[in-house]
């Protein structure tokens, strides 16, 4: 499988898992059906998986490049959460607390930082021996 496709699929899988957890725990709620699909395909898969994870990190060891993937993914994520808060309004935050946070802007900041882990985890999984074909 081509490397970009591998990163795309891993990030999409992370996106599906995140959306399932968010749906069960009611962490965030979408305003229409298309938004979570676009979120998983474009933001998780294309932007964070391929754009950040593969383009920046594919040819470097995870330990060296992880801080750069984390900061880039988080800065893009925070900007994306801000875009939703102030312009798009595609998802909202129910009253339930999230790690002690109850205000929408605080939750947006926290989830924005969490976006940074998507390319890091994607790259770490992509570099697993079972997926690189370099295992024993």
């Amino acid at each position, binding site marked *: 499988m081509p490397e970009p496709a591998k990163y795309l699929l891993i990030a999409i899988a992370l996106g599906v898992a995140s959306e399932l957890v968010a749906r069960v725990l009611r962490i965030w709620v979408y305003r229409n059906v298309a938004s979570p699909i676009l979120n998983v395909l474009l933001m998780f898969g294309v932007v964070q998986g391929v754009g950040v994870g593969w383009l920046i990190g594919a040819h470097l060891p995870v330990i060296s490049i992880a801080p*750069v993937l984390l900061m*880039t993914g988080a800065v893009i994520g*925070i900007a994306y959460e801000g875009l939703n*808060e102030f312009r798009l309004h595609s998802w909202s935050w129910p009253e339930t607390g999230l790690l002690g946070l109850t205000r929408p*802007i605080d939750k947006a*900041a926290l989830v924005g*930082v969490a976006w940074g882990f998507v390319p890091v985890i994607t790259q770490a999984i992509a570099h697993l021996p079972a997926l690189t074909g370099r295992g024993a």
Partner: protein
Amino acid sequence: MTPQRHPGLGDRVHAGVLLFGIAGVICAYWIAFFLTDLTKPDFAHAAAGPALAPLVAVYMGFESAFPLADGFVAITAAIAALYLWAGDPKAVLFGLVSGGGLLFLALIDIYFNVLHGFYTPAMLAADSGMQIEAVINVGCVGVAIWSIWRLWRHTGRKVGWDEAVPPRPPGPY
């Protein structure tokens, strides 16, 4: 959804500087550092000869220690931008943290370059990579001081303080 507030022009510019001028530039710098030779001094390029190997090892070893700390500054700057745009006093906290971190890291970098002779006039005149680094160092110090100065005078700091601390009861003391 966050209630819509309209930050003033100054706060919008400041949020843009925090998000693009600090967070975005830090990310771009490190992407360029790991993927290209653009931001590295000429002596540290991949084609540098073995005679320069000890110098390259010192420089690269030092620079390679920065990404995690720079990531902290980039993320806190982006969070400050988000809060500033929302008209939330937490912008002051995250903005001061990011400004202090940026100034701290820039001063470490500048002193390292001075101590190792990388900021001599001859080196700066001959090495485009060091010219870029000097501009970044000076820019970081300037933007950090400006951001700290502006946030310290920001009404968000005073509002947050007034809400947190009840007024002192009347005397006698």
